[in-house]
C-alpha cells in the first residue's frame, strides 16, 4: 500500500460540504481559521448545472435518482432485526441520501418546520405527563440536552438565512390567526409570507375546518416572493413548476447551499473546497483521544493525509455515524448488553397517508406545486393531544402536500382497479387530475432494537465496511400511525372523497418503498456519555476536537421534516465553538 501524501496543516476540516458543512465552514473561515471543505461528490452550481430543460427530467432525477449517493460505490446494508443477515440496499428507494456539493440540501422539498418544545425534553415531558407506564419497554427515548428556548435564536437566524415563507402561529406566546396555533413561540414572523394555496390545499382546508381542526399553510423554503438574505444573496419567487423533490431548483427560488451560502463561502480567502474526494477516516494520535486530521482519496484514488486541529463531521446522518465507526471514535453500541453509544438510537420517520378520489368535476392540477406548498394541521402533531387513553406516544402532522404530479410516480387508481391493462389505463385517465394525496408524517421513537453498525461482509469501493442498518418500526409507532390513518380518512370524506385508500404504516419496515430521507440518530447528543456520542454542543465526548453535526445527533425523531432543526442545532454548536472552544480547546462539558 502506498503511503498517503501528507499535506500542509490547516485549522479546520469539514467532512462533507452540504448544509451543515457549508454553514460551519463560512462561520469559522470568518474567525480567521483556514478551513478545507472535503466533498465526496462533484462541484455543482445553479448555473450551469441545474438549468432547464435538463433539470425537469422525471426519469433521470426521480426514478434513476441522479442526485443521490452512488450505490455502486457506497451502499448501506439492511435487515429488520438482529437475528437476520443484512444485505445491501442495491438501489435506493425508502430513503435518498444526496451527494455532491450542497448535499441533500439541494434535492430537498423545502418543507421548513421547527421541532416543538416538548421534543427537546421528550423523556422528561412524557414521563411527567403520563408516567413511565406509557412507554413500551424497548423504547429508549431521551432528552437532547438542549432546550427549545436555547435554540430559538438559532431557529430564527436559520429561517432568515433561508428566507422561509410562512405564517407565524405563535409570536412570543400570542397566538396568531392563520398560523399554526400549536407551534412553539417564535420571536417574530417568518421572513416572507406563505406561498399561494393550490387547489388541493384549499380542498383540504375546507374539509379539516369542517371537523374543527386548525389548517395552516406549510412553511416553505421555496419562496413566495423575492428575498435577500443576511449574507446578501438574492432568492427569487417560486413559480410552482413542480420539480423540487429529488431535483435542484433552476430558479434561485429554493433555499439550498448554492443559493444561501456557497456564493459567499466560495469567495472567502480562508476557505478551500476539494470535491470528488472521499474521506476514508479521521486519524487519531496514540492516545486515541485527539484527532490529528483526516485521510482521503481523491478522484484518481490517490490518498492524502490532511492534518487539522479541528475535524467537523458534516455528512449525511448515516455517513456521520459510519465515519465515527470507521475511525474508532466512541464505543460502538451493543444491542445485547445495551452498552456502547455509536449507532445507538437510530430512528427514522413514521409516515402514512391517504389517497382521496374526487368527483370528475374537480380539477386538482397537481402539477402546479412547489415541494412545500401544502395545507396542513398540527392538531395531532407530537404531544399536541392527550395520549393518556391511547396507549402510545408521538404524533403526526397531516396535510394535503402534493409536490408536482409527475406521472411516472403519480398515477393514482381507486381500490378495485386492475394492476395493468385497459381497466388500469382508463382509471389513470379518469383520476389523474381529480385526486388529492393527504400525507401523515410523524415521530419515530428510538428503540434498543434499532441501531447502526459496520457490516461484517459488504464493502464500499475503497474496501471499507458498509454501514449496516437494523430497523423495524416499534409497535408504539404502528399504533400511532394507525390511529392517525382513521383521522385522515375522516378528513378525506369531509373533502368529498368518493373513494379513499387508507394508508397507515405497517410492519415490517421495507426498503423498497419511498418513505422519508429523515434518517437520524446513531451519534446522539445528550448530557450522559453512557447514552450519547456527543455532548449538548455536538462535541464528541471521547475526542473533543471532533464535532459530529446534524441529524445524527437527534436522540429520536420528532413530528416534522428535520432540516430547519438541523440548521438551528448547527448554529447552536457554532456559537459554542466560536465563543468557547476556540478560546480554550478541550471538552466543553466535563464527562
Amino acid at each position, binding site marked *: 500500500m502506498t503511503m498517503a501524501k501528507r499535506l500542509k496543516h490547516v485549522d479546520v476540516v469539514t467532512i462533507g460540504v452540504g448544509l451543515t458543512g457549508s454553514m460551519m465552514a463560512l462561520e469559522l473561515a470568518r474567525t480567521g481559521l483556514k478551513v478545507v471543505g472535503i466533498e465526496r461528490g462533484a462541484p455543482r*452550481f*445553479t*448555473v*450551469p448545472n441545474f*438549468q*432547464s*430543460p*435538463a433539470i*425537469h427530467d*422525471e*426519469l433521470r432525477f426521480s*426514478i434513476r435518482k441522479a442526485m443521490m449517493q452512488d*450505490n*455502486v460505490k457506497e451502499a448501506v446494508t*439492511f*435487515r429488520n432485526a438482529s437475528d*437476520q*443477515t443484512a*444485505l445491501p*440496499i*442495491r*438501489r435506493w428507494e425508502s430513503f435518498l441520501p444526496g451527494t455532491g*456539493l450542497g448535499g441533500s440540501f439541494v434535492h430537498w422539498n423545502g418543507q421548513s418546520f421547527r421541532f416543538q418544545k416538548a421534543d427537546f425534553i421528550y423523556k422528561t415531558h412524557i414521563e411527567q405527563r403520563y408516567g413511565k407506564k406509557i412507554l413500551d419497554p424497548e423504547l429508549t427515548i431521551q432528552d437532547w440536552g438542549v432546550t427549545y428556548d436555547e435554540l430559538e435564536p438559532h431557529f430564527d437566524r436559520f429561517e432568515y438565512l433561508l428566507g422561509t415563507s410562512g405564517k407565524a402561529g405563535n409570536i412570543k406566546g400570542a397566538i396568531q390567526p392563520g398560523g399554526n396555533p400549536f407551534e412553539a413561540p417564535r420571536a417574530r414572523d417568518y421572513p416572507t409570507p406563505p406561498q*399561494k394555496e*393550490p*387547489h388541493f390545499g*384549499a380542498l383540504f382546508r375546507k374539509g379539516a375546518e369542517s371537523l374543527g381542526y386548525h389548517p395552516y399553510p406549510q412553511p416553505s423554503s421555496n419562496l413566495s416572493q423575492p428575498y435577500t438574505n443576511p449574507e446578501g444573496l438574492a432568492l427569487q419567487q*417560486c*413559480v*410552482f*413548476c*413542480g420539480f423540487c423533490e429529488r431535483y435542484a431548483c*433552476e430558479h*434561485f427560488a429554493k433555499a439550498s447551499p448554492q443559493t444561501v451560502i456557497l*456564493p459567499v463561502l*466560495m469567495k472567502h480567502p480562508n476557505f478551500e*473546497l476539494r*470535491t470528488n474526494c472521499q474521506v476514508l477516516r479521521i486519524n487519531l494520535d496514540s492516545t486515541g483521544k485527539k484527532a490529528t486530521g483526516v485521510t482521503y482519496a481523491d478522484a484518481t484514488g490517490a490518498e492524502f493525509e490532511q492534518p487539522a486541529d479541528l475535524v467537523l463531521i458534516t455528512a449525511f446522518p448515516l455517513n456521520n455515524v459510519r465515519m465515527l465507526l470507521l475511525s474508532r471514535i466512541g464505543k460502538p453500541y451493543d444491542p445485547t448488553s445495551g452498552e456502547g453509544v455509536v449507532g445507538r438510537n437510530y430512528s427514522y420517520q413514521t409516515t402514512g397517508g391517504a389517497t382521496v378520489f374526487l368527483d370528475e368535476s*374537480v*380539477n386538482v*392540477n397537481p*402539477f*402546479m406545486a412547489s415541494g412545500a406548498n401544502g395545507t396542513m394541521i398540527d392538531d395531532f402533531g407530537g404531544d399536541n393531544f392527550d395520549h393518556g387513553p391511547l396507549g402510545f406516544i408521538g404524533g403526526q402532522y397531516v396535510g394535503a402536500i402534493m409536490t408536482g*404530479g*409527475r*406521472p411516472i410516480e403519480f398515477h393514482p387508481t381507486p381500490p378495485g382497479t386492475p*394492476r*395493468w*391493462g385497459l381497466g388500469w*389505463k382508463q382509471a*389513470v*385517465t379518469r383520476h*389523474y*387530475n381529480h385526486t388529492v394525496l393527504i400525507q401523515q408524517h410523524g415521530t419515530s421513537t428510538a428503540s434498543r432494537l434499532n441501531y447502526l453498525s459496520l457490516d461484517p461482509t*459488504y*464493502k464500499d469501493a475503497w474496501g471499507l465496511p458498509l454501514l449496516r442498518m437494523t430497523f423495524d418500526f416499534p409497535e408504539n409507532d404502528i399504533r400511532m400511525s394507525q390511529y392517525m390513518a382513521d383521522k385522515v380518512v375522516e378528513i378525506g370524506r369531509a373533502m368529498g372523497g368518493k373513494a379513499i385508500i387508507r394508508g397507515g404504516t405497517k410492519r*415490517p419496515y*421495507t*426498503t*423498497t418503498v419511498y418513505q422519508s430521507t429523515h434518517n437520524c440518530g446513531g451519534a446522539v447528543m445528550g448530557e450522559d456519555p453512557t447514552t450519547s456520542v456527543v455532548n449538548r454542543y455536538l462535541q464528541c465526548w471521547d475526542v473533543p476536537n471532533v464535532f459530529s453535526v446534524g441529524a445524527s445527533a437527534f436522540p429520536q425523531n420528532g413530528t416534522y421534516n428535520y432540516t430547519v432543526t438541523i440548521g438551528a442545532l448547527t448554529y447552536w454548536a457554532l456559537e459554542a465553538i466560536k465563543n468557547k472552544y476556540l478560546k480554550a480547546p478541550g471538552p466543553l462539558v466535563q464527562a
Partner: protein
Amino acid sequence: MLSAGSGAAAAAEGIDASSSSAAHAVSNSAPTTYVFLNREEAAFIERAVARLIPADAKWPGAFEAGVPNYIDKQLAGAWGAGERLYRSGPWRPGTPTQGYQLPFTPAELFHTALAAIEKDLASAGTPFSRMNSEQQDAYLRRLETGEKDLGGVPSDVFFDHLWQCTLEGFFSDPVYGGNRDMTAWRMVGFPGAYASYYELVDQHGIKIDRAPTSLAEDAHGHMIVKPGIPAKSP
C-alpha cells in the same frame, strides 16, 4: 412478429383492431431500430406492452407510444449495465424488505428471462404472437404471480421490471424514446417538463388545455444568469 424496425403504424397486425385508429394518431413517429433486443425478444416485448397498456378508441397504448423503443434503449445503455446498482456479492435471497438481491444487471435479467420465455412458449406450442388477447393476458398473469422460473429469474421479478419499464416508457419525457407525441401526458393532462404556474396556481379548478412541452422542445431555452454566482468550481 411485428418486424423489428417497423414503425408504430404497423402495430395493427396481431394487436386488437381497436388500436389501429389510435395508432394512426401517432403514425408520424420514427420507426424503432432495435439495438439491444433481438427479433424474438422484441416481438415479445412489443406484444406484452400492448397488453399491459392497450390502445383504446381514444388513446394509443404503450406499443404505439414507443415503449418497446424506450425499453430497448434503456437496456442498451448505462441503466441496463447496472448503473447506480450495488453489484458486489455475496448473493443471498433475502427478505422482501431487503429489495432486489439478484446478481443480474437489468440487461442480463431481460436477456435471461426473455430467452426462458421463448423456450417456454416454444415447448407449449403456441408463440405469444399467435395467442389471442385473453391468452396473452393469462400468460402475463402467470408471470406476474411468480409461477415460472425464467432461467434463475423468478417470473414475478421479471414482470415487475417489465411493468416498471412500461410505466417509465409511457410517462417519461419523449427524449428517451417512448411517450411519442407526449401521448401519455395528453391522456392524463400533465403539461410536461416545463412551466411557470405562478399566475394559475390559485385559480382553483381551472382546466389546463394547452399542449404539453417536452425537454426537446423547451422553447424557453433560458439560463438564469446571475452575476456573482460562480459558474464553475474554482
